């Protein structure tokens, strides 16, 4: 209870369990992941395609997204970070790369892990593809994908496809 300075610290953990609902606008996206597909949604006003479809609402227009759009499976790295700091429960070898990936056909990027290459070889514009876990482990989650790996295709210069600004 008391520590070296004579002052007391108390362990007081708190914990709450909630019933979380993804909402009806996430269903096609999550069902898509169970089926091994990337399903995003398009805004009826500005036509941008969101993957994941974040609450099924366009954050620019405040409109319900309408129309499922299959995106990917390949994508382009838009930015990335080389991580050298271990975290509690980490299993991946350091350093590892977390990257924002713009899947082909989507207008916002998603985050995932880059493996099967050296960290220093990762660059903006690199083309990547998903490596899925065993099908028996699939659920409604982006965790179905173990990581993304380079495809070896030539890099894409950002701003030249999909109309993203």
């Amino acid at each position, binding site marked *: 209870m008391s520590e070296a300075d004579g002052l007391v610290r*108390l362990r007081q953990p708190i914990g709450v*369990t909630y019933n979380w609902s993804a909402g009806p606008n996430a269903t096609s996206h999550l069902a898509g992941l169970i089926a091994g597909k990337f399903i995003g949604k398009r805004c009826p006003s500005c036509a941008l395609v969101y993957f994941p479809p974040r*609450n*099924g609402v366009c*954050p620019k227009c405040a409109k319900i997204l309408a129309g499922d759009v299959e995106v990917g499976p390949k994508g382009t790295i838009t930015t990335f970070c080389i991580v050298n700091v271990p975290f509690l429960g980490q299993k991946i070898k350091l350093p590892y790369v977390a990257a924002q990936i713009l899947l082909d056909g989507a207008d916002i990027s998603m985050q995932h892990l880059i493996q099967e290459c050296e960290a220093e070889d990762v660059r903006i514009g690199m083309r990547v593809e998903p490596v899925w876990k065993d099908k028996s482990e699939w659920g409604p989650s982006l965790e179905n994908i173990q990581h993304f790996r380079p495809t070896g295709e030539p890099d894409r210069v950002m701003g030249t496809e999909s109309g993203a600004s």
Partner: protein
Amino acid sequence: MALRDIAIVGTAQRPSEVNSTFTSVEILLPVIQQLLDKVGIERSDIGFWCHGSCDYMSGQPFSFVSAVDAIGAWPPIVESHVEADGALALYEAWVKIQTGEVDVALVFSNGKTTSGPIDQILSLQTDPYMVAPLKPGFDALAALQARACLDAGVVTERQMAEVASRSRRDANNNAIAFTKGNESVEELLAMPYTMNPLRAHDCATPVDGCNAVVLAAGDIARRLATRPAWIRGIDHRIDTQRLGARSMTESSSAAIAAQKAGVGKDRIDVAELHAPYTHQELLLRKAMGLSESTHINPSGGALVANPAMAAGLARFAEAAESIFAGSADRVLAHCTSGPMLQQNLVCVMEGE
């Protein structure tokens, strides 16, 4: 600096439900759109957006940030959030308009109260050393206050049941309310205690819901509403957080807030009191000096629909609507926060 005249010019509320499978954004978006359509303005007309909600209820830190998707933050907007009831967000919006920086504000609040153990969640806001580790639920804390009031003769169980019976009857006419009924006082008193001395009907029904109001200043308010609900006084007071150090039989913070808001200056036609427990309505009426002629909670109050973090703003919406409808000229809206009426916000509104 002379105070600006600011009024509520429109309200929108979502009918209460339980175990909603919609996300907070999905329930907010249509209500906000409905309100904008009602008032006849666009998102670009809103100078300031202010939001009341609680991350502890959704179980996600910064869930209030995702709620910004419901208002469309492009082009960039001026926006704020309080980790509290929407009524407190309204107070911030009122202050913002008073500074002269903006003329129109939209205040919104939401709570998916039934998605988690709300009774335990609310008691996480108590003293982390002395109270929270014992894990008293919110109902238990209210029950301690009720017992003190009963022992002191300040309220009776019959009076508490009368509040419940009246509220449930009035709820029959309110599409937003959840708990409705026609029970007599005798029928309610015959029910068993759930948290002695409280019975089930003495405690508010937790529901999922959300609401929004538009505030506007001066002539803009007159353009947007035929009969704006002008805010004539607003005040917010907080009692000590130490449970044992404040009176269990009266609410000094509610009394001071009411006095500062100008409640006693003239008659009050309608008082929408945010009282999640029946004995608390009785304490509030006494603290604010409300007369028998004041119509208390014609909506049924929070007792029949308590979307945590939105129930206070709901009182403002209901009170303002009675001015719009012409059924009241001078109204009171109240919001409470914290265990045993710890914080109280009181607002007086008038039609012109």
